[in-house]
């Protein structure tokens, strides 16, 4: 199905169009970007609709030669996991463009072009099944975002962008090494040089080699997710990025880490992953607690949200390495819910910064009477973020904890303790920003959220509510398709961890 290529090409064409439009008029790129996103959503809807019923776990497929001499093809496959995350990407692109990027006055054409290019890269990451192609898209989503942060970021943007680039690029190189290593081992065994995911999955690896190659992938995705000792780029980057960049980064780009862990770490190296699981689970629990703990003591609202992301995505790590369909389903729901809630929180933080010209919580307080709509949405998404049952985040966290409890109750207890801390930081943020007395002699008249913001954020809230009360469609889709393209029935994974 060539429509899969269109998922990547359409945003790229849109990017070029936005750039050209920006040369004509500074007001032109925004409608171009919106139109591109609408087309993209329509395209994805078409792809979803065109999925043959009962056609197996892989829902769509596309393949074309690229560099035949090196066995590199343009192979793309989409399964339910990819579809869910593609939808998340498209859905979250809308708040980025509708709410955040319209106010960009500094070369808006280039800004929108880079934003769309990032989206194209993310789309590609979620469908590529040629490892070389995957790496290509991995870099494609990285570089435009780097430029976005460097050019349109806040006061300390250069340093933050540099840190972001160093961390992701450095870990990406480790992944490239692992990809090449896997391809060469496969070539030694079969005489065929290929980067095909399904072919490489059949490679026989010694335990040590498998662990080494797996760690290469793991580090790359762990930086992206992020997993705690490797998270240090994230608070700086989120804080300094322009609002649209923060939303995209938190909402979508971090998910590529979770996706990669499921698709490439657990499924390509199942044995090594299971041996590595105790470490990964411990890191996940550490991330949940450490992120929440540091989130609690931040004064910068964007930093606070960034650390809360670290905490939330610790659940994803737990779920992925619990090696059960329950955990993976929970991790996927958690990724989607986190994308929606944290994306919305970054929109709100960005709006606060636009209005107050500060992100410092010490200079906020008592904003509710001045900005009732903004404050109410902030409260609502903070509550979603603390994992209130009935909203999407709870479903993800509960499923992950349940899967973890089956393996290791102590880790699950630590994760549950994270829920207490998440309530602590979320309510502290609400209390410090919106409640209490206003500083000094009250706030001047501030523009509240208008209908556009309320509609978009309301839609996000509705999605979270739907995800929290009826997550079954996502749960059914979220199990990653099994490795072998043909033979294995779907039950192979749903039956539990592979031996």
């Amino acid at each position, binding site marked *: 199905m060539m429509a899969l290529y269109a998922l990547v090409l359409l945003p790229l064409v849109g990017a070029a169009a936005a750039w050209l439009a920006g040369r004509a008029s500074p007001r032109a790129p925004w409608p171009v970007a919106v139109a591109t996103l609408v087309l993209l959503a329509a395209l994805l809807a078409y792809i979803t609709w065109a999925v043959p019923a009962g056609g197996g776990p892989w829902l769509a497929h596309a393949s074309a030669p690229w560099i035949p001499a090196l066995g590199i093809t343009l192979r793309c496959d989409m399964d339910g996991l990819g579809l869910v995350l593609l939808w998340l990407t498209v859905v979250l692109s809308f708040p980025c463009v509708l709410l955040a990027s319209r106010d960009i006055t500094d070369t808006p054409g280039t800004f929108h072009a880079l934003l769309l290019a990032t989206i194209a890269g993310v789309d590609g990451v979620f469908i590529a099944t040629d490892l070389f192609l995957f790496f290509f898209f991995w870099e494609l989503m990285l570089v435009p975002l780097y430029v976005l942060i460097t050019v349109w970021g806040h006061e300390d943007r250069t340093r933050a962008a540099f840190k972001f680039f160093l961390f992701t690029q450095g870990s990406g190189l480790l992944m490239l090494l692992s990809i090449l290593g896997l391809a060469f081992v496969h070539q030694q065994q079969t005489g065929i040089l290929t980067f095909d995911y399904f072919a490489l999955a059949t490679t026989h690896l010694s335990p040590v080699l498998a662990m080494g190659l797996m760690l290469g992938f793991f580090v790359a995705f762990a930086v992206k997710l992020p997993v705690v000792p490797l998270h240090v780029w994230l*608070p700086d980057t989120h804080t300094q990025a322009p609002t649209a960049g923060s939303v995209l980064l938190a909402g979508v780009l971090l998910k590529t880490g979770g996706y990669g862990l499921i698709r490439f770490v657990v499924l390509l190296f199942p044995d090594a992953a299971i041996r590595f699981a105790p470490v990964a689970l411990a890191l996940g629990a550490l991330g949940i607690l450490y992120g929440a703990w*540091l989130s609690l003591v931040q004064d910068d609202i964007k930093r606070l949200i960034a650390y809360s992301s670290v905490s939330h995505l610790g659940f994803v790590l737990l779920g992925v390495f619990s090696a059960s369909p329950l955990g993976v389903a929970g991790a996927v729901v958690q990724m989607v819910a986190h994308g929606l809630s944290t994306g919305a929180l970054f929109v709100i933080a960005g709006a606060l910064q636009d209005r107050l010209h500060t992100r410092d919580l010490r200079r906020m307080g008592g904003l509710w009477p001045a900005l009732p709509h903004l404050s109410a949405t902030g409260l609502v998404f903070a509550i979603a973020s603390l994992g209130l*049952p009935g909203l999407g985040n709870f479903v993800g966290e509960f499923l992950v904890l349940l899967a973890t409890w089956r393996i290791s109750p102590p880790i699950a207890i630590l994760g549950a303790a994270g829920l207490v801390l998440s309530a602590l930081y979320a*309510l502290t943020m609400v*209390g410090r920003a919106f409640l*209490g007395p206003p500083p000094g002699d009250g706030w001047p008249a501030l523009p509240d959220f208008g209908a556009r913001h309320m509609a978009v954020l309301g839609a996000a809230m509705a999605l979270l509510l739907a995800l929290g009360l009826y997550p079954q469609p996502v749960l059914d889709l979220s199990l990653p398709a099994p490795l072998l393209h043909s033979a294995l029935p779907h039950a192979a994974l*749903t039956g539990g961890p592979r031996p």
Partner: protein
Amino acid sequence: MLALLPPLIVLCPLAAAAILLLSAGRMPPPAARLLAAGAVGLAAALTLWLAVRFLSAPPPAHRLDVVLWHWLRVGGFDARIAFTLDPLSLVMMLVVTGVGFLIHLYACGYMRGDPDVARFFACMTLFVAAMLVLVLSSDLLCLYVGWEGVGLCSYLLIGFWYAEAANGVAARKAFIVTRIGDAALLCGLLLLATRTGGLEIAGVLRSIQPGGPVAEAAAALLLGGALAKSAQAPFQVWLPDAMAGPTPVSALIHAATMVTAGVYLIARLHPLFLAAPAVMTAIAVLGLVTLLLAAGSALAQTDIKRILAFSTISQLGYMFLALGTGAWGAAIFHLVTHAVFKALLFMAAGAVILRVHHQQDIFRMGGLGRAMPGVFAAFAAGAAALAGLPLVTAGFYSKEAILQQAWRAGPVLWAGALLGAFLTALYISRCVFIVFLGPVRTAPTGRTEASMAIPLAGLSVLALTGGLIEMPDAIAPVHLLFRLLAPVLGPPTTEGAEGGAGVLLLAGALAPLAGIAVAWGLWRPRAGAPAPADDGLARAARAGWGFDAAYGLLLVRPFLALGWLNRRDLFDRVPDLLAAATRWGARLLGRMQDGQVRRYAGWIAAGTVAALCLAVRP
């Protein structure tokens, strides 16, 4: 038809909450009041009708299951959004909607003039909906939705007057402390789900093996949740601060309904707790300890709402004591009567507070009985029920049921409970004497509205007569409630202690009378102005026996202090270290190229020598 009613009853307040929320403050206050009170009133009426239908033609096995939809079905785990209607949930529904409706009615008057009334009623109706979900759920995960939902509404309502920073802090404290218990509860659910494959209450209870470590652990974890929600030791610290909310909130959430959720949970899952005897003992002991500690604290308070708050904790201690001794029916009975008389007390106190300009210190009130006789009568009825004035009050009968059960479980528990009854009468009589008798210290103004007076009157009647549905055998063999609840909680254990029943009854009747008498001796109206005791014991009691300070010193401060120390993130230093090392190395290497010809020559020579050494002797 019957199966449609429970979801419909939940939907009434939920729809009202949704409309109020979506109106985003644009709805005029009268409409908001009408909508909220109307929705809860409709729910109450439907519940009443449902009760009549249910009692007149009970469904098979006295339970009615309503499955709404599959919530989570993945990897062998299945959770449903499903309701079960049985006598226990019916009683709870009656309390929630009935008392809830009266409190909404009262709030229409109490909150008049508040510009943000729509937000208030949105949270209140949402709370009623969540509480109904809690008591109706047939699946523990679904119950957890209601459990956290009521916690959230409690948070929102305690901090309703957000402009006061202290209110926000109190709200956060309430949510966090209960959240700690919620985390324990969640762990209990995880354990049960892992062991039994699902969280449907009936299924969970079927698969319990008595005495096993799983049952003990699960019961202990669930108890953690119940203790925090019901403000029992060691989690009781949040409830007195929660009085920062408007008085109707205190009446509805922090007296009548939400705080009893822990009691309901344990009663609902009583076979699990029966399988864990050690946990049962812990429940009884914790209940007794809480009961005495809180009664002592109530005796030393000066703020009328804090007196009532400590009293609530103390009364919940009674319920836990009953639960710990296996007297499920008695616990529920006391839950019901307590909901009535404590809501009444709070609302009467609220009426007083409104009339004396938001003055809450009882030592600045006095002589109010003459100025507001109606409120005085209502408060007195509530106080009498709380004190357990023999024969004529609901509180007497429910407390009596607990005392009887405590005697059977052990004389120590009984003696403690009796001491508690004495203290209860003592502190509430102190409150009544100081506030309503003696000289006037703050002159009241205005009138108590009809919308506030009607609920007071209704609840007064209930507080006095509500106990007649269930009486000890020694007085009259009336067992309406216990027989109603028997399909869920098992047949009531009324046998045993026959010989001493009369003596026990007498002791239970004399203790409150003694308390009132002592209170009259200490705080009867005198010439001089009464003053609060100020010795060390009183100060300790007033501060809740130092739990707050201890938690602050041992847990909160160190945690926050460590956090502030690590605010810049330890791990963030690692890349900086790497960068510093690189810079240092670069400076070292850079120093070699300083433009000094001779040093260049030296380096070249050194390199040559090194290469030579390597080449000659590899």
